[in-house]
């Protein structure tokens, strides 16, 4: 398992506490960039702008990735464009919503 795969696997432990679905299956993680020094840059969104959980979830993502041994620095970039849409969810995420 390479580092990117490991990061995605670890991020599955970060849940949106309102929906009870992890940030990967919700499709909130847009991209994970890794430099040669293993500095990680995560670009992510939330299901709605102004989501009151925005600090909690982005901090959770940072703490989670910082906990991976090989990772050096972590930068979390929250974006609203492109906006989140349901088609970004995984099959598991949709199932968790009862779809």
């Amino acid at each position: 398992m390479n580092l990117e795969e490991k990061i995605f696997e670890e991020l599955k432990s970060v849940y949106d506490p309102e929906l009870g679905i992890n940030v990967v299956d919700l499709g909130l993680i847009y991209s994970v960039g890794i430099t040669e020094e293993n500095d990680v840059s995560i670009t992510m969104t939330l299901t709605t702008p102004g989501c009151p959980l925005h600090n909690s979830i982005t901090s959770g993502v940072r703490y989670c990735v910082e906990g991976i041994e090989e990772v050096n620095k972590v930068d979390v970039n929250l974006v609203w464009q492109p906006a989140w849409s349901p088609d970004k969810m995984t099959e598991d995420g949709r199932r968790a919503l009862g779809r």
Partner: protein
Amino acid sequence: MLPQNLGTETNIKLPFSFILFSLIALVASQILLLANGHMMTDGTFRIPEIWSAAHLLILGWALMVAMGAMYQLVPVAFLTKIWNEKFGFVQFFITAAGITSFSAMLYFAPQNAVIPGVITLIGIFMFLFQMLMTLRTQANPNILTAFVGTALVCLFLTIFLGITMIYSMKTGFLGEHYQAIFKSHLLLGLTGWFTLLIFGFSYKMVPMFSLAHGFPMVQSRYVYGIYVSGLVLTIISFYSDSSILLKNGFFLLFAGFSIFSWHIRIIVKKRLKKKLDKPFSFALSAIGLGNVIHAAAFMVLLSSKFASLIGPLLYCYILLWIVLSIVGYLYKIVPFLWWTYKYSKEIGKAKVPSLKEMMNEKLIVPVLSVFIGSVLVVFLALVLKTTILFNLGQFVLSVAMLIIASSIFSVLKK
């Protein structure tokens, strides 16, 4: 892609202070009502104990909870920071001190209630100022701004008319318009302030809690235009004594509420979350109940029973639309605030509970069903003027309110 770190979160201690105070006021008001309920059925409800309970319920609970919810929801809905949080804490202490001393004075020495009343007013005006300054900084005002902004104007007018009524009682000033002022005070307080506020925030909370996407918003403009026109027309009818204007006003209020109801239905149909949380479902059912009450009020106006039925209908409107909506959303807001306080630094490091796990959801369906049932019993008792039925309904209702308050408090143990 534009990176954004909005940083619009409110210090949760601020909304929490208001909501905790409101729950204590709710418990106190229900205990007072239970202890003095027999007076109401005797028709002697204009006594200090009942004044105290009523003001604890309306100002201490409903107004404080609305203020707390606004400190939490305005940054969420308008993507803007609260203008001055320190000012918010000062406003909380002044308003809380004002309402507590005002209710206590009404109970023990009503003749000395003027100064606590003025302190309460200062607190409310500070809140209005805070919200004005906050909404001014919103980058892109939208239809939600119109709903919430108009609701705040209505709150100001409600207070203004309340003061005018007191002045009129003492001096006879505008005495010939006293009834019109009283009716406008009620209409602006209930349908202007509370209803427009719930409409506005519902447009943010309903899609958020149901995870709805791809729904139209054009209907909200009609809701705003028609409902506010109904308000204006109804108020004009009070002063001109025109029954045609009153009928048209009531019809527009009913039509505006119906479009809101229909629009929320469209939004909920576009949801991704198949199974909705129980408290949120009750907040949605409050919309249906509000719509039925608006329809009933319009039909009663066309009949000869208006004078005898409007009071019981107003009672239902307050309890089944305003209070049920607030309670439904409180079951969502309080767990969120406590979760943020206790677990937001744990997420990503350790396993944290979901918001749903922060409360006993099994209790919600029976207790809110009993709440609705007991309100209907009191409504029937008021229509039929049956004392035993009233006592029974009010007793069960007060107990249900106490269980609701304690179940919300129990979130703090999680």
